[in-house]
């Protein structure tokens, strides 16, 4: 009773003194550099809507019976699971876009965050600014950096092309039937037209089709914010990309689904994007951007965006801000192009500098890194899932310095982009590895990305053996797993993260392939791939990774009687710190007098060797 009276008294006092506690909002956010070397971090990708529901108060229109609808995850829930992520060994958290989205479109919800409408306010399904700040603060308290997912290429389906000039968004007008099989297309998503979408009447074309913004508050099909994006000329207005091979369509077409393509060559768009996204950093002290659909954006945009964001944040004390992009493409030269420091022609540069208002001219710097999609196709899929030859890994790696930036960006991470490629096994846009792969293959893939040069990125639920297929089946509810920390894959991933944290060679050493094989049959070395990590920023530290990717037999890095030569002195004792079912952790291997190493691995197993002296 006394306590009840005391509580009532306290509540009354709080109420009468106007106390509504907005935690963390009173003090301005101080920007800090929270990451010294991004290679020390294991990135963990979270689809916020699917990870944890910590606040039922924001569960608006939740429908868990469909994978394409809102499921209720939020920042409060994610914050509540940070200990789980710490236990796994996560060092950086990549979260879904934070701004307000189109709520729903054609019975699919904007739960993923890639349909921006208001770039300046939070997605209230995830929480408010307090919740976001709290998440970031709690993550930083645990030594976890936070990376925001950002979209600059497009907005959601916020307007339609009034092709028949009747003022209504008609679902069916005459389609071309030439560039695609679609013969009846609607005014939301018409086929690409390089001239711009044309209006037409029964008498023929009638000039550019007017752009009319939708106004449906319930589904949040509303004009975009910031308001500069409400001007039609801010968009390319050429309709839906039909062929990704056509550079014009790739850069200037609407992303399929009617996501309206911004004209990212315009100064207003460039400046707006820097403003809205730098502001999110200033509001929260997040540590990096994962940038969506970069290959659909003009190259000049990336020069402006990356440089102006770095400069603006550096002025406030934040450096080492990591910006990496997603170019969903298997071509190294294309993917790597966004990381190179290349100046355009003088004429183009002069035009680009017209957008500069702070006097700091544009240089060739672009992004700090990219998702290594070519590796996803050529290694994760071909080698670890399908057991194709491992020599393709060596070929892929050998051309890295040719395709990726080799000099650090000014005010960037301090590392050349070629050293900060983001390596992943799967993500929200591709089927999970286990959808078609096997558990042993997943372990090899985990060993590979956690020990190779660059930053490993783990898609949420990988550690829980989730196995969904293509989007949205690969966006499962994490809470259904119970966040168990006792499963084999969780423990394996955790062990790799700890080993990566312990051995600097695995994080900062240069990579050198010491064995790769074109053979996939009964040959002695079929399926073997081995690489060393040493030198570089790791000094004398050393690590050797050996994997047997074939499914049939024991293999060894020996062919034609010539065993694998390694880069440590003869007589060095190497210890397998990872172990496998046939070779427990602690198994020792001695480098021969000729500098070779004899090691045999059962099918689809690997070893992670470090000198005994470094244990």
């Amino acid at each position: 009773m006394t306590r009840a009276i005391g509580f009532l008294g306290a509540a009354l006092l709080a109420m009468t003194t106007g106390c509504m506690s907005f935690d963390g909002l009173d003090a301005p956010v101080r920007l800090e550099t929270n990451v010294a070397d991004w290679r020390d971090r294991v990135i963990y990708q979270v689809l916020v809507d699917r990870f944890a529901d910590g606040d039922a108060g924001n569960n608006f229109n939740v429908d868990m019976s469909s994978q394409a609808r809102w499921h209720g995850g939020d920042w409060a829930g994610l914050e509540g699971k940070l200990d789980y992520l710490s236990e796994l060994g996560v060092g950086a958290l990549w979260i879904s876009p934070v701004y307000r989205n189109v709520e729903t479109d054609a019975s699919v919800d904007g739960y993923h965050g890639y349909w921006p409408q208001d770039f300046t306010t939070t997605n209230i399904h995830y929480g408010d600014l307090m919740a976001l700040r709290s998440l970031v603060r709690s993550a930083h308290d645990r030594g976890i950096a936070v990376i925001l997912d950002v979209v600059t290429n497009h907005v959601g389906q916020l307007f339609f092309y009034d092709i028949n000039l009747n003022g209504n968004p008609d679902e069916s007008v005459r389609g071309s039937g030439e560039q695609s099989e679609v013969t009846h297309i609607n005014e939301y998503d018409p086929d690409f037209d390089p001239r711009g979408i044309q209006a037409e009447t029964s008498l023929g074309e009638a000039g550019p089709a007017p752009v009319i913004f939708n106004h449906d508050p319930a589904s949040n099909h509303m004009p975009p914010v910031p308001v500069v994006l409400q001007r039609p000329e801010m968009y390319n207005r050429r309709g839906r990309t039909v062929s990704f091979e056509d550079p014009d369509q790739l850069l200037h077409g609407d992303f399929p689904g009617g996501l309206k393509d911004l004209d990212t060559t315009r100064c207003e768009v460039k400046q707006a994007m820097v403003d809205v996204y730098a502001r999110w950093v200033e509001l929260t002290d997040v540590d990096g951007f994962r940038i969506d659909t970069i290959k659909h954006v003009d190259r000049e945009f990336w020069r402006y965006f990356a440089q102006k964001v770095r400069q603006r944040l550096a002025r406030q004390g934040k450096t080492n801000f990591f910006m990496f992009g997603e170019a969903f493409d298997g071509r190294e030269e294309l993917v790597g192009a966004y990381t190179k420091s290349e100046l355009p022609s003088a004429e183009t540069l002069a035009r680009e500098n017209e957008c500069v208002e702070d006097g700091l001219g544009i240089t060739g710097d672009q992004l700090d890194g990219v998702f290594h999609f070519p590796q996803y196709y050529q290694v994760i899929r071909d080698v670890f899932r399908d057991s194709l030859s491992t020599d393709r890994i060596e070929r892929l790696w050998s051309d890295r310095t040719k395709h990726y930036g080799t000099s650090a960006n000014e005010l960037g991470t301090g590392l050349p982009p070629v050293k900060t490629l983001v390596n992943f096994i799967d993500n929200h846009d591709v089927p999970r590895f286990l959808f078609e792969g096997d558990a042993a293959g997943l372990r090899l893939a985990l060993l590979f990305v956690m020990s190779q040069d660059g930053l490993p990125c783990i898609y949420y639920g990988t550690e829980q053996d989730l196995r969904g297929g293509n989007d949205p089946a690969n966006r499962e509810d994490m809470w259904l797993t119970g966040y168990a920390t006792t499963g084999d894959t969780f423990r394996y991933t955790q062990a790799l993260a700890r080993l990566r944290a312990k051995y600097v060679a695995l994080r900062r050493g240069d990579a050198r392939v010491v064995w790769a094989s074109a053979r996939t049959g009964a040959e002695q070395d079929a399926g073997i791939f081995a690489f060393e990590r040493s030198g570089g920023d790791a000094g004398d530290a050393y690590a050797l990774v050996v994997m047997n990717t074939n499914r049939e037999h024991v293999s060894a890095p020996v062919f034609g009687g010539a065993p694998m030569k390694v880069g440590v002195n003869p007589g060095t004792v190497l210890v397998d710190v990872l172990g496998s079912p046939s070779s427990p952790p602690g198994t020792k291997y001695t480098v021969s007098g000729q500098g070779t190493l004899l090691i045999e691995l059962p099918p689809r197993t690997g070893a992670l060797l470090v000198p005994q002296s470094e244990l």
Partner: protein
Amino acid sequence: MLQVPGRVLVYLPRDPTVRFLLTSTVFLTATFAASSARSDDVTPAPRRPRRDATEEPTTAERTTRREHGDESAEPKAATQRASREDASRREDEPPLAERSSTAPSDKRTPMADAPPKVEPREPVSPPPSEPAPTLARAGLVVPTNTNGHRGTFVFGSYGRVLAASDAAGRPARDSDIVAYGSRVDAVNYVELELRREDHWEATGIDTRIVSTLAIGNSIFHHNGVFDAQVAVRNLYLEAMNLGHRGLSAWAGSRMYRGDDIYLLNFWPLDNLNTMGAGLRFEAPTHTIAQLHIGFGQPDSPFYKQRASRPSPLNQFGAATIDLLDRQRWIGSARLEQPIRFGEKVGMKLVAYGEAHRLPAGERETARDGVFEAVPAEAGFVVGGQLGAWTGERNSHLNVFVRYAGGLAAYGEFATPSSLGVDRTTSGARELQVAFGGNYELGRFAVMAGGYLRSFRNASRALDASDVDEGSVIVRPQVWFRDWLGIGVEGGYQLQQRGTLVVPEEGGSPAPIVATMPRFAVMPFISPAGRGSFSRPMMWLIYSAGFRDAGARALYPVDDPFRTRAVEHFFGVGAEWWFGSSSYGGTLQ
């Protein structure tokens, strides 16, 4: 275990509702038994003379701010959920959550009437010793004696009508930014009560059957729609003097309320609308104990889910079934103790509590054939009131404190939202402190009221339905003649919601505090004479409200209230009450 007088140990079940009901029953029984022992040789208290209806004590009604379908215009509709989740109990009343209350009948003792009390003004009202009989008051029916009883029909009503405009010529609209602001712009509402009262000579029992129809906005003469929103606000039978003088019981559908704050249109402590039954006992010591249990099932998927299934017996078509079908149990207990100081001055203490219970259930998810459990809910209310009156005219002061937790924090008609992580209302809470009073002297009177309210939904995080708010209002009045006067009203409203807004001038999202001073001038005609509660009354109104940026931010884009910093309001209105029984007590 509950220890009751006599040191009898009673086992109580774990279910909180059952515990509450058992405890309350024991309490009421004990009160009854104790008073019986004392009152056997007590001469019944003298009956207070029946008074004219226009002299009834505080006759007040309250309204919800969105009761007439104007939700889009309300501040609480400024956010998606606010209109539903703001949802403290008073804002989730049915659309016609209006009512009037009248004074106790002739059988009530003076002490039981308070507060507020009425002292009939000599020039206008008939003297207390010459009450107008009920029949004459109603003017309807002559008593009958054909079956050994006397009976009468009584008609009563509360009503208010307002014709008003803003400065732009638009229909005037409630501009309060808080749940309980000024009532000068309260929307049209009327209650029509037809009551049958009987005395059964064979048993000595008195009964009354009360039916109250309420009609809300809009009015035919305004919109030309020959239709009306009608609700049944009372439909119950009450029997009095059940074997013991002072003991009564009722059953049916009933508004169940205590004292209000007239200026705020607000019942701060006890205000329930349920279908159920109750007991009331008034001891010769004037102690009043009330006990009630009722049920309610708001029209919401939170309470009920209907589904279509194939017809049985291999028949064509589909049958509709109720998959989820649960109703809220509400029990209430009220204990009132008046204390007299001399002939006129007095005070009273009220202790009040409610227990709410909603059983668990099961509902079908969006995927046919896949079901999910719906957890049980519980809640409670505890509160108290301290009232005092001078005994001179209607001068009185009431102070209220009320705390609600869990399901009860959302009010009896609410659909709880912003639930906790366990998908229940556990953790929701509401604290209210309020006061209301009136003082009259000669040609002058001043009414005042105010409240502070803090509501937190069950969700741990702050959101738009978490509210701290309050208002204070003062209305001095002066009579130039017995039937003519003027009132001036000043008020201040303040509200903060648990959400962040980007300021109009840009910058970081920040909490907003909305404030709104209001001012009104009301010349009035009071045919029944002087008195703050003298009705009927008609008035002219000019009101001005001043919204700051926070107040404007409560409204959606393009709402005139979002752009106007000053709100002007011109109108003419009328208000009356007479003969209505819709008061918290009984006509005993």
